């Protein structure tokens, strides 16, 4: 039996991923092993092409490893089929993207409620939950604004509220400040830290070492391997 308090949210062992394009094979992940504990804030850095995006996609169940195991909340999900991964994403994972990926036609509230469309459980309190999520990210006064009427920082905060609506065990942030100015970026990082303080588990993927330094722990992807070296200054 696994104890929910001690079981890592993420436990990956020897993940391998190879892309085949026209006969040529490129090994992108060559045996990646790591644990992310509950309530932890992990940053993964690396140069572009190092495989950090591939790792991110596998962690987010958008892609599958060719070999190795991935335990999410103690459950092996490395061989889950497409539908099962969709359901797992819906229940366990909240995504924050560099481009926000908000629906232009929808208000902040409607954008935040979008994941409920695909939830397997019925939600009769969707509206209230979306309001609460927007309040958490400090946008209680922007409920009916559309993305075009919001600043970049506000748009990213809407996206974070959307990631929170299904109460996921894992928040995956992929360069969340990449499209933001310095001040908005700092605010978003502040928000992520406060979410962690409230008990969220967060994995941040970034090429920016200074951003990575603000996480509890940073790991570096290099040549398809995750270097478990901890950055100086982390706990």
């Amino acid at each position: 039996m696994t104890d929910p308090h001690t079981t890592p949210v993420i436990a990956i062992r020897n993940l391998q991923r190879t892309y085949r394009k026209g006969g040529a094979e490129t090994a992108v992940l060559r045996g990646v092993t790591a644990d992310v504990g509950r309530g932890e804030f992990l940053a993964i850095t690396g140069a572009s092409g190092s495989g950090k995006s591939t790792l991110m996609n596998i962690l987010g169940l958008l892609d599958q490893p060719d070999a190795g195991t991935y335990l999410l909340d103690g459950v092996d999900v490395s061989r889950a089929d497409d539908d099962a991964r969709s359901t797992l994403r819906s229940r366990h994972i909240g995504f924050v993207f560099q481009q926000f990926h908000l629906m232009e036609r929808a208000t902040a509230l409607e954008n935040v409620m979008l994941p409920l469309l695909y939830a397997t459980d019925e939600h009769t309190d969707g509206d209230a939950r979306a309001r609460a999520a927007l309040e958490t990210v400090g946008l209680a006064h922007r409920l009916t604004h559309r993305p075009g009427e919001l600043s970049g920082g506000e748009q990213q905060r809407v996206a974070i509220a959307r990631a929170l609506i299904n109460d996921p065990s894992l928040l995956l942030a992929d360069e969340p400040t990449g499209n933001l100015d310095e001040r908005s970026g700092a605010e978003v990082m502040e928000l992520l830290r406060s979410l962690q303080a409230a008990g969220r588990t967060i994995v941040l993927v970034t090429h920016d070492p200074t951003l990575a330094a603000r996480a509890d722990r940073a790991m570096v992807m290099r040549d398809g391997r995750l270097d478990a070296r901890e950055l100086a200054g982390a706990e």
Partner: protein
Amino acid sequence: MSRTLRLARDVGASLRANRARSLLMMAGVAVAVAVLSTVIMIGQGTRARILDTVQKHGLDMMMVRAGGDVQVFAPRADRGLASLLEEDARAIRSTVPNIALVSAVQNQRGITVVAGERSVLTRAFGVESDWIEIRRWGMADGEFLSAEDQAAMARVVMLGARVARELFPAGGAVGNTIRVNGDPYVVKGVFIEMGASAGGDDWDDRIVVPFTTSSRRLFGRPYLEQVVVRVRDARRMDETADAVRGLLRVRHGIASGAPDDFFVREPEDVEGAALETSTTLTSLLIGIAIVALVAGGVVIMNLMLLSVAQRTHEIGLRRAIGARRGDITLQFVLESLGIALGGGVLGIGIGAAVAAGIAALDVAAVDVTWIPFAAALIACTALGLLFGIPPARRAAALDPATSLGERRL
């Protein structure tokens, strides 16, 4: 609320948000459906009108006209117009099988009818008492001539609706004595309003007297313009007509190879052909409209494929937040279904408006029924499903990781 219903609402919101694009995609189908439903309604209307006319004539009626297929400008006697006699009518009745009723018919234009101060110039018909049953006319007032009137060469007259109206504007024509070419006749009946024939004759502008009266008194001539015949079995119309033809050729002593000096007209010859023409034309137009409808479907499919390419990120996002492949398929099929049905409803609206306009202007017969609307909706549903599936499958097949990452710099 079920997941499908939630998705349908989301698709509705998406179609409304992209109104311009949605309307553009609907346009092709809308035009095709409008044409289709209008054509069907006109086709049905025309068909109904023709069948109505056929009914009025009676499918079981044939007409033997004096004069064969000869020069119209030849002298009257040469055209054979003096060839058809009362005895011919009698012979048809007594010797040709499948004959129910026969009436000799004479008619002449330029008959003056006077009632008190009023007078009209009209056309007079001399007919036998079975004529009204053969032609299926009705009396608005009084009654039709009887066999006794016939035998007595009675000076009785039946008025067409228009003649009655002009001579007796206040009504009450029956029982009055009027003068027909100077002689006194008692009005025995007034016909109901009959309208015009397919050839444009005003059936209400006439008077009718007994055949004996017309041949011996009013016109004073034995030869007929027509013999009208009602057959027992309309399905045997052709062979009966042939029998009549053979009989008359013998009676008129026409050598073999020489042309008839009469003409047998079967109602199907005219009405059947008209019906067939309109059916052919309707089929052709329906065919064109169906091609247009399919083209509309192809337009939807191509714009949808384009839209899938443009919305790669949206699809990736939906996958990321938990949409299964099936949800994406459903979303795009519902979109194309919504567009096709929207186009269909739009087209039906336009078609109904056009049909109403045509009916109001009376340029063609229009039969407004639910059939073209139901057919259009069914066709649009099939269209939306059929042409929605390829784009939907392409959208669902997109790799979620790749579709999200495409724009990353």
